[in-house]
């Protein structure tokens, strides 16, 4: 039954939650409505736009394409989990410095996609960034400032680990 309740345990941004959810509730709705973490945005609900991207056990997923019950036992990072102790993540700083944000609706998805990209490829070329973020849609920026932001973040994060 889609309306059957299940209890799940998830860790989101380091906090453990025990919650009862209906089986058909989308993970994106669970994050936004049940946990009130409204930084994760919903743009298409069919897995194309990438606005609802979160890290799920370290990998990006579209939270609109999963049910909350599937997240039982998972560790999730949302955009709210990027800054630590009031300190912006270098990616967030790079987006700020390079005007990678306009309306901000796609931004959480881009940040998490870029984070995974840079973890996989810390020193990407511009072309690699373009391909790497091509699963996310932005309607404001024409992508140019986002690409510059990701490249700047790569430089920044690379410099920190050296």
């Amino acid at each position, binding site marked *: 039954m889609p309306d059957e309740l299940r209890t799940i345990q998830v860790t989101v941004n380091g906090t453990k939650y025990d919650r009862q959810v209906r089986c058909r509730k989308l993970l994106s709705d669970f994050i936004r409505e049940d946990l009130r973490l409204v930084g994760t945005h919903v743009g298409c*609900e069919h897995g*194309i736009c990438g606005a609802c991207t979160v890290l799920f056990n370290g990998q990006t997923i579209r939270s609109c394409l999963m049910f909350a019950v599937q997240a039982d036992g998972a560790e999730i990072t949302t955009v709210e989990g990027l800054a630590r102790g009031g300190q912006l993540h270098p990616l967030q700083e790079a987006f700020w410095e390079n005007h990678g944000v306009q309306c*901000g609706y796609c931004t959480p998805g881009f940040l998490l996609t870029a984070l995974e990209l840079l973890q996989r490829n810390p020193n990407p070329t511009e072309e690699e960034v*373009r391909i790497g973020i091509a699963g996310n849609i932005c309607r404001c920026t*024409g992508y140019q400032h986002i690409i510059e932001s990701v490249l700047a973040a790569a430089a920044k994060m690379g410099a920190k680990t050296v």
Partner: protein
Amino acid sequence: MSKTWIGKNVKRHEDPRLLTGRGTFVDDITLPNLYHAAILRSPHAHANILAIDASEALKYPGVVEVVTGEDVVQKTRPFSVVVKTPFKYYCAAVKKVRYVGEPVAVVVATDRYVAEDAAALVRVDYEPLPPVVDPEAALEPGAPILHEEVGNNISCHRLLDYGEVDRAFAEADLVLKERFVFPRYSSVPLETYAVIADYDSSSGVLTVWSNFMGPFTLHPVTAMALNIPENKLRFIIAKDIGGSFGIKSSIYPYIALIGLAAMKASRPVKWIEDRQEHLMASSSQTDRVSYREVAMRKDGTLLAIKTKIIDGVGAYLRAPEPATTFRPIGNYVGPYKVKNLRVDAYDMMTNKCPTGPNRGYGCHQIYFEQERMMDMAAEKLGLDPAEIRLRNFIPADAFPYVTPSGGIYDSGDYPKALKLALEMSQYEKLREEQKKARKEGRLFGIGIAVGVDPSVSNMGYITVAMPAEVRSQPEYLPKSGAVEAATVRMDPLGGVTVLMNSTPQGQGHETVVAQIIADELGVSPDDVVVVDDFDTSESPWSVSSGTYSSRFASVGTSAVVIAARKIKEKMFQIAAHTLKVSPQDLELGQGKIFVRQDPKRNISLKRVAGTAHWDLLRLPEGMEPGLEARGVFHFPMADAPDSKDRVNSSNTYGFMAEVAAVEVDRDSGQVKILKYISVHDAGTIINPKIVEGQIYGGALHGVAGALFEELVYDQEGQFLTGSFMDYLVPTAAEAPKLEIGHVCSPSPFTPLGSKGAGESSSETAPVLIANAVADALAPLGVKVTELPLTPKRVWALIHDSSSTEVGR
């Protein structure tokens, strides 16, 4: 005023909240006891509704109310429209559906999942009718008629005639005529429409939270439709709006519909549009067929333009339409000094979604015709496309320049901008590359496009949709003006707060306002708090409020300057009184007001502010206590259309000159953009990065219209592009890399000299790419007159050509 902060890339004040997930979009707002709506929509393009049975839906657990056309006709009125044509446009279908996706019923339930379940249980019996989907076909005798009371499908027809068109055509050396087709594409912001409505029956106030972007002319329109006094309809606009690009003007029918649902259900109701609904039934630009004729001298002088345009406005002519047709009326001739213009305009109702504003509103369509024609004429006359444009430009010393249709261009240097674009593109070298490429059999093309970018719509231009005889009737209220207000406050400790009501959708207004205040009042932008929370019951709004027609950089910033200067004047009076000098002897700097000749005699801003709030007996006699000023700016030249249909439809006019190079893949028909140079004149630039961001975004929107995006219907009016798998928005992999250049002709009509830039390249990019593709395909002797240039269409152009290739 020193320009310490204006012109600087100040980092946006909005970003920290948006980067950390702390923005406030409508869907982030919740209310106690909030219910959720789902909308049942028409599966037919055209059908009579015989019966609606909501009994099963009402029995479904969790459902509290179902709203249908019966409620709509009983409780609401048709929306006011711009024209006198007697069709009725309600917030949901009444007895008949006229497009796929038209709202038929609203289900209100405990959550969205339940509401959607129950919507599927509402039974509607339809009697399908033949549809008409093509705007030209809608004009044919015998076409299916959407609104019986109208008798045909024409919602608006105007013949606008300026100068001596027939004489110019008679005297021309060359006359060209072409048919163009410009498709429906749309804004498609990442955040869809969102409405929360809450009715307080004790006060009769309906409060609506939404991502409506203005113009607030549509607030009285919504109040009248809901049969409630305007002051009892409270619009609160969410602090953050997830993009709009024009489309969120057209949300107001849903505000009325969800408002009605909240009133009927006696509960607060939230409705979040899903993506399919958005693509199918929110809004888009018109689909246009046009026949354009140009008269030229053999030296390339453009003598006259005649155009017959047939805009498909969808099932109902929804305000502010037919503005697609008329918004660019003052800048119809673009940057050219041609004196003779005739526009024969039809707005046809068809069985498609109603239309509305989309970035570039009305301009990309006319520049598509115009700039394609300039290339076709250049080819016939053996002129370079750059040369023919340079020969026709309004000269730099002619500003302010009055166009034949009444536009008053404030400033510009069009030759300088185009020459800069040519230089940046290394135009001569590109032509060499092209020769080489053609020898190798490659399809390499270079495009040029120029355009005048109108900003700050005159509230009166749309009345040109009605004949002068109607406008001259005594009972008719003329409309004019374009206004914005801002309030600046200094608190007792010297902190500055600015209250705006500009409904930004990502344009960084908080930052730009802080920069202006910093320069005007000698403070740091970081110390300025800008509150842009729009609430019709609290904000100093006007019917022209909102962020549309690229208006903020001209009119919003000007209101801020006026308010700041009022505060400054008052502070100088207080300082002069305290220091016992004349205000003329004083200067502002480094947080102090000092005597110009003797800077040691000074008083801090904080002390002045403290005096204004806490030491009222030390104020100059008769001065009002406190430090708060409201600035209102309006353009005096935004007059109503005259008896000859001339109207200054906008108030500042920027310019863009663009050059692109493309290569077309012969086997796949795919277009690759190799170079994109974009030169702009937006007057004084306040924050260069923000302007760049607007240009990048606008250009990609236009490129998307040129190559990818189209809202497609089949012959039966079925909608075929309801997901992002069918409606192809470009990603970073497809986006061209732009190189931007600027020239600066400050507007003499704004205090800072600033103009709009938010739409700019969205107006020229479609034809820029079309011109480049046409140039690439020139050896095949084919014509490019229709968008989008998808691989399929380009492949057909290549393979249907007679294959008598020149130069191979």
